[in-house]
């Protein structure tokens, strides 16, 4: 019997598969389609101190094997998330990873402090890499020193392990990874979206109201995989890998490259059942490849 369980700081995962932040809301919609307790974990939509209405629409555009989004961290604000969304999720036997966002260090600290107290929040994912919010967000993720400081500040107040989500829009992602590790991060999640753009071919106007948006989906998988491979070489921190995962073979790739668990984002929109489908296929696939457990497979590309 192959063993799918994965043990990470704060997270005892039944299996390494979890929906990525922002692609699963707070679970309500997908709960109508399948039992959320099947999931290894759930990364909920980013929470900020205050309610955020996000960006004007259109907020999404399709690209070749990918999509652009500029939702703009729309969320009901941490109080509603803590008071309504998280308690609702307690009915499921699944650890929650709370995605924390903001524009200033204080924002991050405040949200981290409060939300990490929630019973079913087992870890935080610090989103220092959202490309769709002007001032803050992205800048935190592109400067090692700033990233380190923010990590330290959040770490100081969080009552659960802290994972930092890295931006791919950088020259040297390993440097950022090292910085957050020095800052005391318990883990890394990567990657967030690549900054991109689509134009309306009649008018020449950007399709996305925010002008640019974050590119996700299968198109970015080669970049995500390369970055996970690169970061794994420089750190022993656990990595939750993501970027274009659409089937069980993609999961195998990320684990091979060094990810300890894998998140699925955009693919949920294409096939709402993608997460449970991957989970059910994983044991057989592992067995075919000659592995008894997920943890055995992790990082195999580095051992060749």
């Amino acid at each position, binding site marked *: 019997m192959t063993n799918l369980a994965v043990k990470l700081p704060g997270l005892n995962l039944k299996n390494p598969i979890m929906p990525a932040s922002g692609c699963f809301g707070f679970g309500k*919609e997908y709960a109508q389609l399948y039992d959320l307790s099947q999931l290894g974990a759930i990364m909920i939509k980013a929470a900020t101190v205050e309610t955020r209405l996000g960006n004007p629409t259109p907020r999404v555009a399709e690209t070749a094997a990918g999509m652009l989004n500029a939702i703009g961290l729309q969320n009901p604000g941490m109080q509603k998330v803590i008071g309504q969304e998280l308690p609702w999720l307690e009915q499921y036997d699944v650890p929650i990873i709370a995605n924390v966002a903001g524009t200033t260090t204080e924002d991050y600290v405040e949200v981290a402090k409060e939300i990490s107290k929630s019973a079913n929040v087992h870890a935080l994912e610090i989103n220092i890499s959202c490309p769709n919010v002007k001032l803050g967000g992205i800048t935190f993720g592109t400067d090692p020193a700033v990233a380190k400081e923010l990590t330290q500040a959040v770490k100081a107040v969080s009552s659960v392990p802290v994972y930092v989500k890295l931006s791919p829009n950088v020259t040297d992602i390993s440097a950022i990874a090292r910085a957050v590790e020095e800052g005391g991060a318990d883990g890394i999640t990567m990657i967030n979206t690549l900054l991109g753009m689509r134009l309306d071919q009649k008018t020449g106007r950007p399709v996305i109201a925010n002008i640019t948006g974050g590119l996700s989906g299968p198109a970015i998988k080669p970049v995500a995989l390369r970055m996970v491979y690169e970061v794994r070489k420089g750190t022993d921190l656990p990595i939750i890998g993501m970027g274009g995962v659409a089937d069980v073979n993609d999961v195998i790739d990320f684990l091979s490259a060094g990810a300890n668990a894998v998140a699925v984002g955009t693919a949920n929109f294409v096939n709402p059942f993608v997460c449970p489908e991957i989970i059910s296929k994983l044991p057989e696939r592992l067995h075919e490849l000659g592995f008894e457990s997920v943890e055995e497979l992790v990082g195999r590309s580095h051992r060749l």
Partner: protein
Amino acid sequence: QEEIARNIFEITVEGELKKEMSAPVQFVHIRVADSFEPLLRRPNSVAAIDQENSRFTMIYRAEGRGTTLLSEKRIGDGLDVLGPLGNGFPVEEAEKKAYLIGGGIGVPPLYELAKQLNSRGIETVHILGFESKEAVFYEEKFREFGETHIATVDGSHGTEGFVTHILNELPKDFDTYFSCGPTPMLEAIQWIYPEKKGFLSYEQRMGCGIGACFACVCRTTRSEMDYIKVCSDGPVFPAGVVIS
């Protein structure tokens, strides 16, 4: 499927859907190809429902990448359909007489609506706008249910201009209106009938189609909510609710 007007296709799909379809303008979210390109599903509303044979019909314009691929499907090809999604027109709201106002690809869902309203003994008047004569479809089918007015932008058929030109000529002797079409049209109609009970079906770019991604939101006058999602709170909203 067949081409019923220029680039306008009618397709009938058979199969068990997760939920029963009932109200018109519920829409489905379609994956047109088992490929990553195009990647996203396409929202498309339902033009006619045939419960017995668990069939439904859609009418769509083949314009971009996805709908063009859809138009190349042959009989027997499978189709990955998610739905029914969203709410529908509240047929029970109509009392005696209703105006059904549609523009372009907003016309199809009104057909199932007309069917259901008439079966409830409600008189329906149909005001339909199209680009040009070649783009007109379902005119006869609507006439079977009642008075039908056509407007074409280039005047090649019916009244020249937009449906609003026709509305300004028509009596206001109805109790409820239902409309589906481009947002500017929906806006205009609400100005024309400030005092009437109306229900409008909106379009918005979608990601998930089920309420999880926040792609399709609109600002709203509903004080208790910060925003509404077209895919899960809509696509149909009472007049005055959506701020666009």
